[in-house]
Structure formats: C-alpha cells, structure tokens
C-alpha cells in the first residue's frame, strides 16, 4: 500500500481485514463448540492436520459443524447485504427484507414448492424467488410514488405484506396433512442444521455473483441516497440500477430463505451497527456486511446450538430477540 493507493481502497482493506479476522475467530469458535462439547485445542490440532481428539471428533468438526458454520456465514452475509441494499434503495435505514415481508414471500414460494414436491434445487429456490419477487412488486405498488420517502408508509405496507404472508403460510400449512409439516414448521423459524457441505457450496455459488454485482454498484448506491434525481444528474442510469439491485437482492434473499427459512432482523442489525462504526459509504459497508454479517450469524447459530439444555432452538429466535428491540429503539430515535 503506497501513498498513491486511494484512501477508500486503504479503508476497505484495513476495515475488512479486521472483520475477516473477526469472522475467522467466530468460525473457529463455531467449530469448537457444539452439543457434544469439545475444546478449542482439539479444533486447532485438527486444523493443523493432526489427529487430535480422534477420528470421531474430526468427523464432528468437519462433517457436521463445518458445513453449518459455512452456511451460517453465508446466510448472515446475504441477509446483511440484503438489508443494506434495501436501505439504500428506499433511503430508509429501517428497511430490511424480513420486515418488508420479502422473506415471507420467499417462504410462501418455498413452501408451495416443497408441497408440490419440487427438488430443493433448483425447484424450491425458483419458487422462492417467484414468491419474493411477487411481494417485492406488491410493496413497491403499495408504497409507490412520493410515499416511498415516507417511513411510515413503507413500514406500514411492509407490516401488512408481512401479515398477509404469515396468513398465507398458515393457510398452506393447515391445508396440508403432511408428514413433512414438522420439518417445514421448524425450517420456517430459521433452521441451519440440515445442510451439508454440498448445499452450502450451491448457496455460495449463487451468492458470489450477487455480491460482485452489488459491489460494482456500491458507489452508485451512495449516490442513490441523495435521491434518484441527483443520482441521475451524476450520470447514473437510475432505473436500470434500481431494477438490477432489486432483482439481485430478491434472488439473494430467496436463495437464503429456501436454504434456511425465515431469519429476521439480521439485515437491520448488521448494516446499522457497521454504519455507526465505519460511516455510510457503501463501498466499505458492502464487504463489511459480508464479513460482519457472517460473523454475527455464526455467533447467533452457536448460541442457538449451545444455549438450550436439550436439543437446540432456531437461530431465527436469537436474531429476532436481538433485532426486534433494536428496531424499536431505531424507530423511536428516527421519529425525533
């Protein structure tokens, strides 16, 4: 890094290497703890390729905890980035895929797909995408025109869309007498447990291009915060950019939802926290959300695994317990 390196690049590199360390740290923690206990020393030895705690512990670490930690990191990253993008598009720091009901729409699509007997990939992912796109269109119509600028209109339409989605989900569930019902219910609450490395890999492959496209548009998102008029006078094709971001983000959210169900408020907590620390520049926030959101989700999932005395709870329970109160605090502060 010499003096000619642009300041932004320097900041991106410094901030994100710190966050990358944080993510690695939480992933190490995620590998070290589980329902059978385990110790960090064993994981460390296993990482170095030594047979520390025996073949069984090795299996538990690499075949059970590792896919889960990877999945949690991916999900946290995708949801945080989703929140970040919606906040920029709607110029509203309270926007978030779950709060807006977009996750709910994806869940409706995914459940319909499951009940129709589609394959998890690409069938259910596609039906989830259709669901999230439909709700997105619904929200945009509900809060169209000037109202987009008004927080209350946006949140209200989000609440309504969310309530509607919940009702449809309950409807679908009561219409079926299916042995998979338990699984669906658990998955709805945000379940990271039943995924292997192969599925996590598919999710990673779906998310990576999304992250790239969004990073390419991160400076544009900065300009969009000044309003679409001003952005346009700075040479941005606002319509194309907004459409691209909407499609990419709802694809990202639906891919995530179809893998692990409804996990809320991550897209609110992480972008907000990072913005508070590092400022609102999206070129810095975007990679920071990927790494920081990943770390946050790994921790939430870890808590969901180790807190209950028996079995485990949904990671969505933890994220909602942290996120919902924060949302209320933010709403109250933004009202001033």
């Amino acid at each position, binding site marked *: 890094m010499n003096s000619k390196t642009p300041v932004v690049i320097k900041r991106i590199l410094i901030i994100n290497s710190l966050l990358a360390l944080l993510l690695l740290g939480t992933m190490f923690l995620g590998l070290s703890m*589980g*329902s*059978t206990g385990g110790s960090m020393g064993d994981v460390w030895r296993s990482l170095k*390729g030594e*047979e520390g705690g025996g*073949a*069984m512990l090795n*299996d*538990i670490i690499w*075949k*059970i*905890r590792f896919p889960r930690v990877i999945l949690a990191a991916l999900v946290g990253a995708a949801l945080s980035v989703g929140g970040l993008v919606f906040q920029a598009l709607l110029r509203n720091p309270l926007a978030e895929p779950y709060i807006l009901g977009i996750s709910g729409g994806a869940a409706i699509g995914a459940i319909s797909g499951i009940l129709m007997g589609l394959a998890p990939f690409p069938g259910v992912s596609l039906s989830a995408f259709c669901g999230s796109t439909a709700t997105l269109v619904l929200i945009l119509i509900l809060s169209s025109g000037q109202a987009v600028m008004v927080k209350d209109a946006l949140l209200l339409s989000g609440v309504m869309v969310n309530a509607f989605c919940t009702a449809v989900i309950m409807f679908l569930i*009561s219409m079926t*007498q299916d*042995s*998979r019902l*338990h*699984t669906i219910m*658990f998955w709805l609450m945000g379940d990271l*447990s*039943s995924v*292997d490395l192969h599925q996590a890999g598919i999710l990673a492959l779906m998310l990576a291009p999304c992250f790239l496209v969004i990073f390419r548009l991160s400076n544009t998102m900065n300009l969009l915060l000044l309003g679409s008029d001003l952005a346009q006078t700075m040479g941005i094709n606002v319509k194309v950019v907004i459409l691209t971001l909407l499609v990419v983000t709802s694809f990202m959210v639906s891919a995530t939802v179809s893998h692990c169900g409804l996990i809320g408020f991550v897209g609110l907590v992480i972008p907000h926290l990072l913005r508070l620390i590092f400022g609102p520049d999206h070129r810095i926030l975007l990679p920071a959300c990927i790494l920081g959101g990943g770390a946050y989700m790994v921790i939430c999932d870890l808590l969901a695994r180790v807190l209950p005395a*028996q*079995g*485990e709870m949904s990671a969505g329970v933890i994220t909602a317990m942290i996120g919902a109160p924060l949302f209320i605090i933010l709403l109250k502060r933004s009202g001033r």
Partner: protein
Amino acid sequence: MNNLYRNSRLTTGLLIALSILALPTFVVAEGRTVRDQLGRVVSIPLTPQRIIALAPSITEIIFALDQAHRLKGVTQYSDYPEAASILPKVGSYVHLDVEKIVALQPDLCIAVKDGNPLTVIHRLESLDIPVYAVDPRNLAAVMDTVTEIGAVLGSQDRAEEIVADMRRRIETVRTTVAKARRIPGVFFQIGIAPIVAVGTHTFIHELIVMAGGRNLTEGPLPYPRLSKEQVIGLAPDVFIITSMERGGVFDKVKAEWKRWPDMPAVKNDRIVLADSNLLDRASPRLVNGLELLARLIHPELFEAESKRGTP
C-alpha cells in the same frame, strides 16, 4: 523447517491412505447386508453393539427384545420403560441432533420412515453410519417390525415370543368383541383446541375397529380438524379423549362436552380418558392399547374381569 513440514504432510497423507484402505475391509469383514422396510440395501454389522433408536417406539421394541444394553442413545419423550429415560438423548425424532448421534459412535441407527426427516438419514449415511429404516403403519406391520429388528439384533427367539403373545391377545379381544350386539360409534379426540380427531390411516382407527367400535371420523385425512358443531352432529356413543395434554385438562374438556346432554355419550356417561402412548406408538404395547379400547367401547363384555388390572 521445510523438511519437517513436508514430513508431517507425508505422514498425514499416509494415514489418510491407510484409513481409506482399511475402512471398507473392516466393514466387509464384520458386516452383512440386509434389506430394510423401505427396500433399501443396508450394510450393517453382524452383531451391532452401539445402537441408537431414532423414535420412542423403536426404543420400546429394543427394550421388549431385552437388548437395552446395546442401546446407546434414544430420542426425547422415550419414557417407556422408565429405564429408557436415563439414556443419552439425541434430540426429538423430528429434529435429530446429528452431532450427538455421531459423538455416540453408533454402529447402527434404527429410523422410522414416518417422522425422521429424510435429509438427516442421508446425512448419517454420508457419515458412514448405517441406518436401518422401518415403516410400521398398522398392527400387522408392527409385528413384522418386531420380528425384523429381532433378526437385525440377533434375538429372533425373543421376537417370536413377543409376536406370539401379541397374536394371542389380539385373538382374545377379537373373539370377545364378536359377541357384542351392536357396534358403537366412537369419537376419538386427540387435540383439544382445535378439536382434532383421527382418520382412517392411523393406528387408533385400526384399534377402534378391532376393538368392536366404529370410528366416526374415518376419512383420507389422517388427523382431521373438526368444529364443535360437527362433533355434536356425529352423535358419538363413546367419547375418548387422550391424555396428550396434562393435568386437569381432561376434566375441563369433559365438562365442556357435558353441556350437550342429548349426545349419546353424555347420556350414558361414556366420556373417557385414554393414555395416548399406548395408542399411537408402533410398539408391542399397542396390544395393551387395543385391550384398553375394547374395555372402553364394550365395558359390558369385560365386566367379569374389570376388577383385574386396567392399565
């Protein structure tokens, strides 16, 4: 430094190669292949010593076969017999804790098709844990399951004994209820709010019919929901409520139904409580459930022995 590194890599590589070579030979030498109830060919050890039962019914069967000492893990709600509740838990049967299962180092898991998620079964198999799946959907299939698990565990004799005893007791119930003059209509309530009853494809339906009753809510839905109006319209002769819910709930529900004195079951005071564990678990105890139901539906036929232990 460099040399050392290369050495340790070499050793690791050798170890991996050795274990890959050793693993299949180990299985082939000690194992055998069987076909499970789903028609899958599964390689299992000759005499499995570390078994995990992935549903409470499997736990009961293994206990009944006197093979509990080989049982190393069970699921939540495995409460019968009492000794089962102290065994390590591996989550509930719909939400299994794969990590716990692996940590118990089982050489065989026994799963049920209706309940255990397929994804978890695949995960376990990808971790080289053999999974033997059973699918007991009716009383006859439960007896087959007991026989098959007996064969897998190498205790065929005990399995035969159990099945023979079940057959004998079923026959006794059959001949007794055959003497009944009429077939009462039974409403079997398993859910309080909402009201949930049982359809045709359930153990309970089968047991009601075998016990000389008529299930008023038969139909394609396994667990249909009903409104209060519908229930009253069915005019049940016998009203059975299961004990899934705790405490004084039964008395409350009973009092609630008593507000309709024209209902035959109320008129004749035939609103009764039954233990759900006897009726919906695919275990040898289903026969106890059958005997219980027969007594509840046709008390007049069992009056002679009513002093003797009701379960």
